[in-house]
């Protein structure tokens, strides 16, 4: 209390007298102002829009949803609100996605054939087209980031960043519209679009891009983009190959094993993990190059790269832990066993053990530097095998994504 009204200064002997700095009440200075007090009008508007959106969805579609769907929908409001409050650009992203997806749904008027007849649907916001836009923008953004890095051009990096945001917006819109389209195919066919390899590759692209954009804002540097975009572009290249040669984009109904609400939580959680591991590996690559003096003057400081690498692995590990557990819960319900050493499960465990060891090395052994960076890169190889390799080379129960 007294501190709020500071007592007059009584200089102690020997202290040289200098201009008196204002003495402010500590409340104004505490470094951790509670989140709620830092919110501005836009933040509240955003939260309100989320809540209204969820309420509308509940009111309008509750007949099509079961109690778990309701619960998940409601839980999304606070989670998305907090994400948007902490990470402001996310609000605009979500608003854009909502507008585009709703516009698409409005244009469809409940008739799939309109995808071919309506110009905006055919060339902008039907699901396939939106995902194609995402793919193209990711490639261009990669180029822009590299031009920015090589040419030390702030403009190039800004462009890359903006394009990545737009790509993520288009991709997310594409998935939402695809979700809607699946219901137009038939109520019994409708399902969340995270059920096959094609759909999860889109999800991977989005998650990795968004995670990267978060770190970009958080560390106020766009210099890592060039590297992270390589892995995203590779995923997109695979996605396109898969679309054009295997016609993989066709919406397929769900086989009985996938008809579970666990899928809706297990898969996205998993891809936060995969996306974060991918970011860490690419930042690790940048670290390794910079540590050898390659591009060192163009990349962020080594300690920044190392910090991002750790943060990404930490968040990836935490979510991968949840994802694996959710997978086990699902397996318990679908196959009668929470763990049966199916190749996909086993490789998930290997990925998990790998990053657990990584964290031990850093946190308890205090290991730093190139070894951990190499390890993160190898970690991505292991993760990639768990993600696609298992489907390609091993047989098991997770056969939904066979190539």
């Amino acid at each position: 209390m007294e501190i709020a009204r500071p007592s007059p200064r009584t200089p102690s002997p020997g202290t040289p007298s200098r201009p008196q700095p204002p003495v402010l009440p500590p409340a104004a200075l505490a470094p951790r102002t509670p989140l709620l007090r830092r919110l501005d009008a836009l933040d509240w508007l955003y939260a309100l829009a989320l809540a209204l959106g969820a309420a509308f969805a509940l009111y309008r579609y509750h007949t099509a949803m079961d109690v778990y769907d309701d619960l998940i929908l409601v839980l999304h409001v606070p989670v998305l609100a907090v994400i948007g409050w902490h990470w402001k650009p996310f609000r605009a992203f979500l608003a854009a996605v909502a507008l585009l997806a709703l516009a698409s749904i409005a244009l469809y008027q409940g008739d799939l054939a309109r995808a071919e007849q309506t110009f905006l649907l055919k060339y902008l916001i039907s699901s396939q087209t939106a995902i194609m836009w995402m793919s193209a923008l990711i490639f261009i953004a990669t180029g822009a980031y590299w031009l920015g890095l090589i040419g030390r051009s702030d403009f190039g990096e800004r462009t890359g960043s903006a394009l990545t945001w737009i790509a993520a917006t288009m991709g997310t819109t594409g998935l939402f519209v695809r979700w809607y389209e699946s219901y137009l195919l038939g109520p019994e066919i409708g399902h969340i679009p995270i059920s096959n390899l094609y759909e999860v590759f889109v999800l991977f692209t989005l998650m990795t891009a968004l995670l990267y954009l978060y770190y970009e804002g958080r560390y106020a540097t766009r210099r890592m983009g060039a590297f992270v975009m390589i892995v995203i572009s590779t995923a997109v290249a695979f996605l396109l190959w898969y679309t054009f040669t295997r016609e993989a984009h066709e919406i397929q109904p769900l086989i009985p094993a996938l008809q579970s609400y666990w899928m809706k939580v297990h898969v996205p959680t998993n891809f936060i993990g995969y996306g974060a591991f991918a970011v860490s590996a690419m930042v690790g690559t940048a670290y390794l190059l910079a540590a050898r003096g390659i591009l060192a003057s163009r990349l962020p400081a080594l300690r920044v790269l190392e910090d991002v690498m750790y943060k990404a692995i930490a968040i990836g590990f935490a979510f991968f832990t949840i994802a694996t557990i959710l997978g086990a819960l699902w397996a318990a319900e679908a196959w009668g066993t929470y763990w049966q050493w199916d190749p996909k499960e086993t490789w998930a465990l290997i990925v998990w053990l790998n990053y657990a060891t990584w964290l031990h090395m850093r946190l308890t052994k205090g290991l730093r530097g190139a070894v951990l960076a190499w390890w993160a890169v190898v970690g991505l190889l292991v993760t990639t095998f768990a993600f696609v390799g298992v489907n390609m080379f091993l047989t098991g129960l997770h056969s939904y994504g066979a190539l």
Partner: protein
Amino acid sequence: MHSGIARALFELLSSMRFAISLLTILSIASVVGTVVRQNEPFNAYLNQFGPFWFPVFEKLGLYSVYNAGWFLVILAFLVLSTTLCIVRQTAPMLREMRSFRERAREASLRSFAHRAILVPAVPEADTIERARAYLAHAGFASRVADNGEGTLLAARQGSAGRIGYFLAHGAIVLICVGGLLDGNLPLRLQVWLGDKHTTTGNQLIADIPESARLGTGNPSFRGDVFIPEGRTTSFAVLGLADGILLQELPFNVALDKFHIEHYENGMPKRFASDIRVTDRSSGKTTQHTIEVNRPLTVDGITLYQSSFEDGGSRLTIKARSLLPGRPGVLREIEGVVGESLAFADATAGFSYTLEFTDFKAFNVEDMRGSEGGQGDDAPRGMDKLQRHLGSGAKGAEDRDMRNIGPSFTFKLRDPAGQAREFHNYMLPIEQGERWFLYTGLRDAQADAFRYMRIPLDERGSVDSWFAIRDRLLDPAQRDTLVGRFAARSFPAGRGQDAMREALAQSARQTLGLFAEKGYETLGGFIEKSVPEAERGQAADVLVRILQGLAFEAWTLHRETTGEAALELNPARATFLNDTIAAISDSHFYGAPAWLQLDAFEERHATVLQATRSPGMPLVYLGALLLVLGVFAMLYIRERRLFVLVKPNEALVAMSSNRRTLDVDETFRQHVEGLAAVLGAPVPASDSREGA
């Protein structure tokens, strides 16, 4: 001495190095289990690895890695090591959590990576008071102590994060223990201690000895419950590597109906079992439907929809003779899938056991490409992109999913025990506007079926094919056929007798060769006796002769049934070609008859999995604690802030258990905050990089 060794062992087992080695070994061992397919029949491994490596790998337990002794030992060491690690860390961690380190010396504070010196504008007493209030406001718990060098405010926050360590590592122990309870270790212990013995799977339930039966008290098991529609069972079958055990259930399960539903494109949509469960002690019956992802728990036993099989469908079959000179139906058969019967004929000299192995009422297949000639006009470039714009509803336009009707499989086993397996469709399948009945065969389970296509005649029947085949292959009818063919080509009375005779000669020879092994013998003959340059032409001539003979056989057949003779036209020529090709293939069919399915009465059986998993609550609790622990460890940041107040100066220092960049930022903010409340100028940054 002893305690010295025990101490060293404890150090080793609870060490980080040991834990990391174990994690690495566990990962590698797990990889092995994904590369070698697990729990396949031993024969498959014998084929794959050969007689030398097969027993070596068997000894190593590679066919069931995750149940192998050495694998369980690794897991046990992991549990031990983690437990010891917890034991070892508990005291220091608790001390750490409780301590404020209020005895820290100035020299050590000055060596912190994050430190700053403030010159407060307020008297010492005020400085202490204000600093304390600031710390409390910023969420720190603090102690004030006089360490001899000044007044030390020792503050900390986020120590609860250390609880995360206990949660996460304790969780790992819980999960492993729970997993062991639910694995097959308890079962193996019972086999080992309880004098139980596995037995072979193919015997009647009633014949299974007591030593292979487990009572309802068994705390942990996982087995299959097989129930045909309309039947009741009270047992689960537990499969072990070397045989089975029978698990008695405390209730009876009856299957009323099994449902299979498909989507329009033929993908499976729903598998469900309508069951009735009757408790044996109370006699109470309840009705349930079990589906994939919708299990049922009764009496602590959970029942899952695992798979389904044929439960004894009834098949009405005609065995149409493939024996030359004995046309017609050899026998009418009433078969039941899963059963076998004798199929013998003394006059024809064959004796087989006929085993019906499966029946499917639906077969949805992609019939794309069956017409051939596609893919050349596939769109390219922008057109291809165009096709991929729009909704996700359209897919491959060249896909052609069709239900091609019922099929059944059976084995013909000869007296020596050798069996061939056959796969016959009930309904004809269209290909390029021609219709065929498909029948497949294979010699070994591992092979794919090779299909013979029997063409249908203009009335949609296979009768013509059988009739033509019989006449072409029956030596007794050869002269008639050859005579008529030669006479039609060179009618009598035109002075072509020599040519007619020559043609008859070649026709007789061609037919003789064809009757042996079809195109194979004909091809061999051409290769042997015709110079290379003329082979193509010779083959043409032979095929033309065969067509003529087949046409003759067809006409002859129609005469005997009182039908009018036919004009040869392109469609009929195609039919004759298909007929000859199928006759040629039929030489390799290896069965005296083709079994034609006339009618069926389908009956499903469901396969439920019954489990009792005592470890599940432990594992789930462990999973919850693991998540909480990991988040606590990673995201509750422990921070210690020290303010050493001396006359005219305050030394601020901070430490953190996670040396990340945001520690720099937090420290800067705290220094600024403290400077503000103390009225001190903000010092130039004096924190070294957190190496």
